[in-house]
C-alpha cells in the first residue's frame, strides 16, 4: 500500500487503530467513528494529531461539530463502484469547511484519482507498483471540466464567459 499525498509518495505518519479494540493515547493515530463515540473525552484531550476513518455508511454529518479535533479524515471506498464518499468529500470541503487531510482509502482505482482529487481528496492509499506514474497519468488524461467543484479549477462555463 502506498500513500500518495499532494502528488508525492509519502510515508504515512499515522498509525491506523480504527480496527483495534483499544485506542493508543500517544502518537498520531487514526480511529473509527465508533471509537470516537466511545473515547471522545480521552481523545479530545490528546496533544497528538488525530485522524478518523468514516465507513461508507457513516455520513460526515456525524462529526460535523467535531471537525476541529481532526487533522485527517479518511473516507472509505468499500468497492470502487460505491461512490458515496465523493459526495461526503464535497460536503466536508464545501459545506463544513474542513481543510485538513482528506484521504481516500479502500478500493481506490487509478482511473478514479482525478475524480477524487476534484471533489476534495488530497491523499490516496493506492495499491499500485508505480503510484507516482499512475498519478501523473490520471491527472494528465483530461484537461477540460464542465463542473465547478471547489477545487479551484475553472469550469468550461467559467472559461467561456470569463467568469471568476
Amino acid at each position: 500500500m502506498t500513500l500518495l499525498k499532494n502528488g508525492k509518495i509519502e510515508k504515512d505518519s499515522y498509525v491506523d487503530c480504527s480496527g483495534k479494540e483499544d485506542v493508543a493515547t500517544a502518537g498520531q493515530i487514526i480511529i473509527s467513528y465508533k471509537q470516537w463515540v466511545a473515547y471522545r473525552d480521552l481523545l479530545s484531550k490528546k496533544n497528538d494529531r488525530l485522524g478518523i476513518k468514516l465507513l461508507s455508511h457513516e455520513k460526515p454529518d456525524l462529526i460535523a461539530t467535531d471537525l476541529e479535533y481532526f487533522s485527517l479524515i479518511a473516507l472509505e471506498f468499500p468497492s470502487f463502484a460505491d461512490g458515496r464518499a465523493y459526495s461526503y468529500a464535497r460536503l466536508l470541503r464545501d459545506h463544513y469547511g474542513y481543510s485538513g487531510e482528506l484521504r481516500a482509502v479502500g478500493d481506490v482505482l487509478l482511473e478514479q484519482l482525478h475524480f477524487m482529487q476534484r471533489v476534495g481528496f488530497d491523499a490516496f492509499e493506492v495499491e499500485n507498483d508505480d503510484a507516482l506514474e499512475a498519478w501523473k497519468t490520471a491527472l494528465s488524461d483530461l484537461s477540460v471540466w464542465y463542473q465547478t467543484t471547489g477545487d479551484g479549477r475553472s469550469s468550461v462555463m467559467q472559461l467561456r464567459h470569463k467568469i471568476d
Partner: protein
Amino acid sequence: MYRYDEFDSRLVNERVEQFRRQTIRRLNGELNEDQFKPLRLMNGLYLQLHAYMLRINVPYGTLSSRQMRQLAHLARTYDKGYGHFTTRQNIQYNWIQLKDVPDALGDLAKVEMHGIQSSGNCIRNVTSDQYAGVAREEIQDPRIYCEIIRQWSTLHPEFSFLPRKFKIAVTGCKQDRAAVKVHDIGLIIRRNNEGNEGFEVVVGGGQGRTPFVGKTIREWLNAEDLLSYLEAILRVYNMSGRRDNKYKARIKILVHQLGIEEFRNQVEKEWQRIRGSQLKLPQAEIDRINNYFAPPQYEKINDQLELLKKQKADSPAFSDWLKTNVSDHKASGYSIANISLKGPDLPPGDITADQMDAVADLADRYSFSEIRINHRQNLVFPHVLQSELIELWGELSNIGLATANIGHVSDMIACPGLDYCALANARSIPIAQEINERFQNMDKVHNIGELTINISGCMNACGHHHVGHIGILGVDKRGKEYYQFTLGGSSDEKASLGDRTGKGFPAEEAADAVETIIKTYLETRNNNERFIDTYRRVGMKPFKVALYDSP
C-alpha cells in the same frame, strides 16, 4: 443544432485517447477484465451474447445528416453494415471489435459524437421530445436545457459512481412525447404569469422490475436554478440510495421508501445550501446555447391544404402515410414527417448503412439536414415543406422506409431481447415480427387506430412494456419462452402502468393473444375511441374473458 466549441471538442478528443490507452493496456494484459469492465462501460462498450456492443449517444435525439453519414460509415467499417436505434434515442452496434473501438470513437469525435456515459451507474444521455423546436404548442425548445444538462453531467466527478444508472428527460410541451414521468428525473418546461421560463420537476419514475410513475417534487423551478436543483437531488440520491441490492438501487425506490415529502425536504435542505453557488446558470450561457437552436430559414408560405387534399385523393397510399406519419409544424407550410423503422423487413429500430446514407441525403434535400430519433425507435424529419411531402414519401418508399404505421399496432417498441442481449430471458424481435406480419393490411391497422405495443425480453423493461397500451414481457419458464401481457399502460402526460392480464402465453401463442385483445377492443369500443380509452372505461374483465375464457 448545437455545435461543439473548442472546450467540448477537446474533452471528447482527450477521452478518446484515454480510452485508446486503456484498450491497449487491456489487450496487452496490463488490465484484467474486472479492471477494464468499468472503463469500457463508461464509454458505452458492453459485452453481449455474441460480441461487444457499442452504444453511441444521440444527445436528445437530434442528428445532422453529416452525423448520420458517419454512423453509416461506422456500421460499414467496424460492424456488419447496420445499426439499432434504441428507446433512449441512441444507436447501438452489435458486432464491433474491441481492437477497433478507439478508432470508431475517434471517427465519431470528428462529427461531435461519443459514447461517454451511455452505460454505467452515471447520468445517461438526456432524452427529449422528438418534435422539440417544431411542435406547435411548445413553450420552449427543451434541447437548450438538455444540452446544458449534457455538459454538466459529462464526467461529473461526484456523480460517476451512483447507486445505479440515472436517466433525465425534458419536454417543452404539455403533450408528453418523451415519457418524462417514467424517468429518474423528468423536467417539464413551464411559463409562469410573469412570462418567465421554469420547470415542473418530476422525480422517481422508472420502469424495470418495480415500475413507478414519477411524482412532482417541485411545481416550479426557475431556469437559473436548474443545475443546483439537479445537483441537490443527485447528492441526496448518491449518499442515501440503496447500494445493497441492484434491483432496489434506483432513485424511485429511495423516493418510495422515504416518501416524496421527506425526499423533498432533504433535497430542499441541500439545495438551499448550494443554490447561490457557481451552479447558478448564467443567462449568457442559456443565450449562447439558445442561439444554436434557432429555427432554420423557413420560407414564408401558407399551409398547402388544398394541394395535399388533391394528392391524397390521387393516392390512397400517400393518404395513409400522411394520416399516420405526418404531424403539424409550428411554421405554416411545413410539416413534421416521421419515418417508421417498423417495416416488415427489419427488426424494430434496425437500419442498414445504405438506408442511413439515403436518409442523410433526403434530410439534406427535404429537412434542412436535420434528423431526429424518437424513443419509439423511429426517425423524424422535423422540417418538411408540405408541398414536398409527396416527393419525400416517394423517395422513402424506394428505400423501404415509408411504412404508414406511426403510433399504430405494428409500430412496436422492441428491445434486442435474447437474440443479442446478455440480460434477456426471452426473444423480442421474432414476436414483434410475427405481430407485424399479422398486421400488414393497412386498412385493418388504421381501423384499429392509435395503439402502442411494447415488448421487453426481461424484467429490466428496455422495451417499455409497462407503459405500452399493450405490454408484453418475455420470461423464461423452465427453459421455454413465455410472454406475459399487461394492458392500459401509457407514457404520455397521463402516464400509467399496465395491469397484468394473467398467466403468460408460450411463444407460438403470443401473436394470437394480441389478436384476441385487439378483437375484444374492436367489439367493445365506442365509435372512434382509442384502445387506451376503451381499456380505461371497461377495465380488464372483457379482455380476461377473451384471453382465458374466464373473468
